[in-house]
């Protein structure tokens, strides 16, 4: 059973039992608190980090947070918390 079929099975399971898809499908979740804080949950590693841009990998693609004075407040396997003045959040 390949990863695609596993994903399809999970999606079907979530739909049948009306469960939230994000935890089952291992989707990345990006939460914004105003333009001052961003949280990336379920990331798959850090790709780039400087004060203007933070790029994190996820199963859905690369999540890019652009802004000024960016800083990683906390970094763990499950979550990246970024503070600073956030201008753009992109999924590529």
């Amino acid at each position, binding site marked *: 059973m390949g990863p695609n079929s596993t994903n399809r099975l999970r999606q079907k399971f979530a739909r049948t039992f009306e469960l939230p898809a994000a935890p089952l499908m291992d989707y990345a979740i990006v939460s914004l608190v105003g333009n001052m804080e961003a949280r990336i949950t379920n990331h798959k590693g*850090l790709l780039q980090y400087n004060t203007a841009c933070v790029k994190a990998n996820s199963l859905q693609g690369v999540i890019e947070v652009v802004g000024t004075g960016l*800083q990683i407040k906390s970094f*763990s396997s499950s979550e990246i918390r970024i503070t600073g003045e956030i201008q753009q959040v992109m999924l590529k």
Partner: protein
Amino acid sequence: MTAYFWQWWQGFVTVRLRGPGLERLLSKIAQAGIVLWEVERRTPEVMLARVGVKDFRRLRPLLWGSRINICILDRHGLPFLLRQIRGRLMLIAGLIMCLVFILQLSSYVWLIEIAGEEMLSFSELKLAVQELGVKPGVRRASLAPRQIEKALLLKFPNLVWAQLELRGVKALLTVAERSEAKGAAKPAGHIFAERDGVITQVLVLRGTAQVREGDTVQAGDLLISGVYYDGRGQKQFGSAEGIVRARVWYQAVGEAPLVVWQPVKTGERRLQFLVTIGPWTIPFGKSYSPETHLADRKDWWLSLGRAMVPLGFSRVDYWAVEHQPVPVPLETAKVQARALAWDSLLQQGLDPDEVRSENGIVEPMGDQDGIRVTLKVEAEQEIGLFLNQ
């Protein structure tokens, strides 16, 4: 804040990571279950981050094989603090003893304040509360404020309310006195002259005038009699009321030296330290007389906000002095002598606003070492004094 406290409790270090591919390393660290915080990018090859003490030990193996080096910049938290003070047991013991000592001292009453007294004197009330056991150095727990309040109300019939509050080391007694009933009948009596003078105005509100404007009176003379005839022509004896103003004269003398002996420091200094615990002062070192030494004292009091702890430390610098004669300019001496004479006039009860004329005579003193100013002042003031019979 809670997170920071927890990190501080467990201890954390600020590390500097230097080398290429720092993002890759960070991902590797996260995968190993290590949490980093306050990750700061300084340059493309330098990053600062904070990591827990326990996690730091797990961090080093992850760096093996990479070209990244790590160094600790700073250490924070309780484990490091404990390590620092481990070798200073006496300091901790001293701090604990000091704390216990302060706590012990704060369980006593050291200050007594009285508020709200009007007719009763402060010293009278203070003496009364001291007799009831409220005095500096008494244990707070041994005082029963409600009973003391009751005892005070019984002791002073004029008191209508009393409250004893124990605020830290201070006992605050607040009292309210019975106000005199309005319209209470004044006792019968006459108005007499308080000073010698020449009458300038007589205004009788009740009673019979015994003097007229222009009369010369001496202290003790009757001015307004309390005897009068009412509307029905009947003789009554009541309380004399009225205003009697007169020209009066005051005289006072002030003296000032033309040479003063001023202390000049010789440079010799002696030190004395004083430790004050409540009402007791323990000196360390000798005291010197103010005639031979000038004292320069500095006090430090230990206080904890409103709960003042009566623990003080003082340092007294005694400077040895020699007295040398310094001439005083005549004008300065005149001003000083005049000021002294005025002080004396004010003490005699003269109101400066009532002064009509002033005459001063300056003369040298017998030994030529000073001057004497004799002030004669004329004033117009009320001289009536009511005395009941």
